[in-house]
């Protein structure tokens, strides 16, 4: 037999270098060992990957869509705005000086916007009327159905100007080319349907379909008299090299009291931008909630994987690997799998949007440029990486703390071992980094912070509730309730077992169902508010553009219709707030909640006496015959938000004239009542001589609506009636669509919750197989065993449903109470649906993994378990 010489002892000087090389070798060994283990496949990581892909993919998709729309809006800025810059005046046209100033800088197009009633015979409809002038549009193309030039189509023939309308309006009034139609007090001829209005998106919220005609046509129809509520807009085509900020500053310097609003192509549709921003930010938060739910599944998958690896870990430790080396092996493995999941997630999320976006782009009401955008994908990858680290570090940390003896006794549960303060600190830092990234990268950081806080709170509450439910189930399994009911005892015991993962399932499924519940309940209560509560208090009609001389005949005619109850009128002007307490509005420090007051023009009225039903909360009303310097009464909440107090001042620009008024009192305003409410009411003398019209609200039965509409439109065609019920329906429909969009987002959370549920069910399959075998040995029928498994699954799901209902309803109540300040009712239908839905989902998942265990022969199972 050949003798083998023993190894030579290491030279003394080489000990230090061998220690260094041990550090390096350990890492190399860890990589090699990690790759070798991964050769076995990813079978144990399906749930891990599913959770990560869903969360990251969702965030990537939302970010890609938002970016596509923002890019589209920016690229089409000129077309959307209708120019490089836009100046808008309320109630008046630009003065000759202002026109000259604009003409010196570029090509100018004049437009007019207003609301009016379109009438054909006895049919009527409220419309958004826009008058255009020569040169329109400066950018983009206006298209008429059947072809033809827009301005040519609108040209007067035999003294009658043409109009074109949106298709929906033409269909509603059965308009055929050549039909005479009345708009306001004028007669026009219908010439066609608008196929494309390039600057439509910049117009903001529309109360009716679009009607296009010429400015001249509106002027000749007497619709642009002094005091009538219209906006005159001027679109400028500027040289490419023009500095937009400098040009804006020049205008403000040249015409400091013009009271005009400036916009340019960089922010052509601010309303849409804000909406897309907020919706995108909200849906990103929902995606992060899905990622957080997925984190539960990720953590459970890692724990399950490590538990299965106990024999391997025991062997590694026996062979000399340190705890740190073992930790590195599995950290590398988990890291690589997480990287794979993130890569798939961003590819799917970004890829689907890039591929399918162009297909649906033409149906979007806003322009969008769909392609692969690196920034949102990088953002999604960052969130995914941080979340994966956060949820895997705790179970991985067990590897550093578990003692070899525990491994050999197989007496280990990764959940039960304290990970150590280092790991806890690392987790806190990771959580802070994730929160910081989410808030920092969000376009609405405050909303993001609040939502994150809500998600974190929900996590804690749901986890606690899940744990409590598991304890209760465990206690009940030993109670008299479960006596003589082995199936029930088994089900309750299984729910309460520490290894059952019940708190995780309740958290994951509960969060998904809870988000759906909250959105459904908020939607329900909003619809209730709009459809039931508001109409009870709201007037039937608003009327605008009532001339002063028409007030008395208007009142007589309207109140002469059967079914009318009450008519309220008030003078109405519109103005822009330009200064607060002597400080320019743009520079004033205000509560962000009051920012809307300074955006655009606001309704202003005047009154000698306190309007009926108004409550003064601070200060006093002026004397009826007061004729001193202008005083103003301000809505209390908004006034405080603007930093105003009694004795402070507000400057409002009305028709180009700045009026500075001292704050005389604050008054309580209930905007929701939809009655005549003004932010600012001035003392009468402040607006002496200012041309204006009046608005009115009419409270009447629904049966009186049609007769009132006919009477007013026939006798006072310049007065525009707005049927409130129709507007509520429009808003309700828009809210419904928004609710649908957010529900889709919530589904992403639920899908991830389902992945966790399926993962937990799969993880328990081995135990169920063993239980089924034992119960068969003891004489239980398959039906009884299946019933017990089904009961367990349904109970777990029902618990998740009840928990979801609790926190979802709490969230919805908070929103309705604190944000909308409105009563909350719990809808019975969705209540039952949520609980049953949770039970059904869990039942399906549970049964899916119960049939296999039932089919297995007890002998095989028990023999395999014996080892």
């Amino acid at each position, binding site marked *: 037999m050949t003798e083998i010489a023993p190894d030579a002892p290491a030279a003394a000087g080489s000990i230090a270098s061998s220690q260094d090389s041990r550090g390096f070798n350990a890492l190399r060994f860890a990589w090699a060992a990690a790759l070798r283990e991964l050769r076995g496949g990813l079978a144990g990581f399906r749930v891990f990957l599913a959770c990560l892909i869903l969360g990251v993919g969702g965030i990537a998709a939302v970010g890609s869509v938002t970016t596509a729309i923002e890019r589209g809006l920016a690229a089409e800025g000129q077309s959307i705005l209708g120019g490089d810059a836009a100046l808008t005046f309320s109630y008046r046209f630009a003065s000759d000086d202002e026109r000259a100033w604009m003409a010196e800088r570029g090509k100018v197009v004049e437009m007019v916007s207003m609301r009016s009633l379109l009438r054909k015979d006895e049919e009527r409809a409220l419309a958004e009327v826009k008058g255009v002038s020569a040169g329109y549009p400066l950018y983009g193309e206006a298209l008429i159905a059947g072809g033809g030039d827009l301005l040519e189509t609108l040209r007067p023939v035999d003294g009658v100007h043409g109009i074109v309308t949106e298709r929906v309006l033409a269909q509603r009034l059965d308009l055929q080319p050549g039909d005479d139609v009345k708009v306001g007090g004028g007669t026009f001829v219908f010439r066609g349907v608008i196929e494309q209005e390039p600057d439509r998106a910049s117009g903001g919220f529309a109360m009716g379909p679009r009607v296009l005609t010429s400015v001249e046509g509106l002027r000749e129809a007497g619709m642009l008299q002094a005091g009538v509520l219209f906006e005159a807009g001027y679109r400028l085509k500027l040289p490419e090299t023009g500095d937009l900020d400098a040009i804006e500053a020049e205008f403000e310097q040249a015409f400091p009291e013009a009271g005009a609003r400036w916009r340019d192509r960089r922010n052509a549709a601010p309303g849409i931008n804000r909406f897309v921003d907020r919706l995108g930010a909200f849906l990103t938060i929902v995606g992060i909630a899905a990622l957080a739910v997925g984190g539960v599944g990720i953590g459970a998958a890692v724990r399950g994987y490590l538990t299965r690896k106990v024999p391997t870990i025991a062997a590694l430790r026996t062979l000399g690997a340190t705890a740190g080396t073992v930790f590195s092996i599995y950290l590398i493995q988990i890291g690589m799998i997480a990287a794979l999941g993130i890569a798939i997630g961003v590819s799917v999320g970004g890829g689907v949007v890039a591929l399918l976006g162009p297909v649906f782009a033409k149906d979007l009401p806003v322009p969008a440029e769909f392609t692969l955008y690196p920034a949102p994908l990088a953002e999604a990858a960052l969130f995914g990486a941080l979340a994966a680290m956060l949820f895997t570090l705790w179970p991985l940390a067990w590897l550093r703390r578990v003692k070899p003896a525990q491994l050999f006794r197989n007496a280990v549960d990764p959940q039960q071992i304290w990970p150590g303060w280092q790991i806890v600190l690392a987790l806190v830092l990771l959580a802070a980094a994730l929160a910081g990234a989410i808030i920092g990268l969000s376009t609405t950081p405050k909303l993001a912070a609040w939502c994150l806080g809500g998600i974190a709170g929900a996590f804690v509450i749901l986890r606690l509730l899940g744990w409590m439910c598991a304890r209760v189930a465990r206690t009940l399994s030993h109670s008299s309730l479960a006596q003589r009911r*082995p199936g029930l005892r*088994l089900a309750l015991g299984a729910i309460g077992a520490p290894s059952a993962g019940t708190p995780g399932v309740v958290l994951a499924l509960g969060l998904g169902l809870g988000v759906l519940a909250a959105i459904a309940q908020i939607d329900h209560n909003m619809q209730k508010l709009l459809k039931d509560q508001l109409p009870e208090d709201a007037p039937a009609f608003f009327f605008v553009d009532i001339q002063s001389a028409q007030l008395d005949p208007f009142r007589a005619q309207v109140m002469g219709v059967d079914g009318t109850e009450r008519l309220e009128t008030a003078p109405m002007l519109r103005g822009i707030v330009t200064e607060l307490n002597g400080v320019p509005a743009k520079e004033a420090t205000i509560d962000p909640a009051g920012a809307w007051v300074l955006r655009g023009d606001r309704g202003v009225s005047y009154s000698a006496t306190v309007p009926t039903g108004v409550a003064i909360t601070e200060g006093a009303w002026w004397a009826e015959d007061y004729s001193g310097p202008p005083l103003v009464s301000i809505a209390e909440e908004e006034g405080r938000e603007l930093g105003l107090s009694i004795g402070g001042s507000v400057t409002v620009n009305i028709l180009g004239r700045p009026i500075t008024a001292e704050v005389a009192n604050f008054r309580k305003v209930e905007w929701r009542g939809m009655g005549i409410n003004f932010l600012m009411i001035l003392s009468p003398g402040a607006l002496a001589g200012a041309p204006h019209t009046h608005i009115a609200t009419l409270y009447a039965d629904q049966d009186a609506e049609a007769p009132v509409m006919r009477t007013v439109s026939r006798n006072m065609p310049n007065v525009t009636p707005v049927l409130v019920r129709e507007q509520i329906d429009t808003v309700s429909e828009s809210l419904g669509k928004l609710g649908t969009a957010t529900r889709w987002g919530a589904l992403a959370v639920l899908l991830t919750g389902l992945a966790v549920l399926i993962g937990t069910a799969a993880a328990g399959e081995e*135990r169920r197989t063993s239980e089924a075998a034992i119960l*068969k040995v003891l*004489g239980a029928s*398959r039906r009884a065993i299946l019933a017990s498994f089904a009961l367990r699954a349904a109970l777990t799901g029902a618990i998740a449903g009840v928990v979801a209902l609790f926190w979802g309803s709490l969230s919805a109540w908070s929103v309705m109470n604190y944000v909308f300040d409105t009563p909350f009712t719990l809808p019975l239908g969705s209540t039952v649906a949520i609980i049953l839905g949770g039970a059904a989902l869990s039942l399906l998942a549970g049964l899916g993994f119960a049939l296999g265990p039932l089919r297995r022969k007890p002998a095989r199972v028990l*023999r395999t378990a014996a080892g």
Partner: protein
Amino acid sequence: MEPLVRLDRIGLTLPSQAGDVEILKGISMDVAPGESVAIVGPSGSGKSSLLMVLGGLERATGGTVSVLGQDLTEADEDALAALRRGRVGVVFQSFHLIPTMTAIENIQVPLEIAGHDDPVARASEMLAAVGLADRARHYPAQLSGGEQQRVALARALAPGPELLLADEPTGNLDGETGTQVTELMFDLARQFGATLILVTHSDVLAQRCGRVVRMSDGRIAA
């Protein structure tokens, strides 16, 4: 007297990755009521498989099996479970207690399945009979191996079965504990008048039985 168990040239062939494997080959055997039979043989001789067939936990692929007067050959899963209900008790080498139930609850289960009048009282009696009355509320994870096997024994005998099957009941226990469990098993089986068939590697244990059946390569050795 009619035998409690009659096996007539039974065979058992099981599929495996390497192809079908014939585990039992033409085994015939009768066991009379009240007998105690030890089945011994080397590893892989088919002892445990034979026990599984006797308990209706494995279906023979050839021959006929009659246990407690019922032909098990064509019986379905539920019929086999119904046969075991209260009439056949099984003790396993690895105990196979339900981990989410306490000791007393584990014993209650077969009584409840069999529709016993007062499963709690009976379970308490059985737990006391195996010397674990003070461990009633403990979970299997809180019991030692010997204690778990005693609970398993109590569970198997609680319904008063006519046939007790034990597959290496002391296989996972140390010598002293194994002896204690063995004493308890024989004692209780005698008390309940149960016919005992046990599989064992231990000749000492086998000699405690009234008859020893040796198996080799799937057959009863001559």
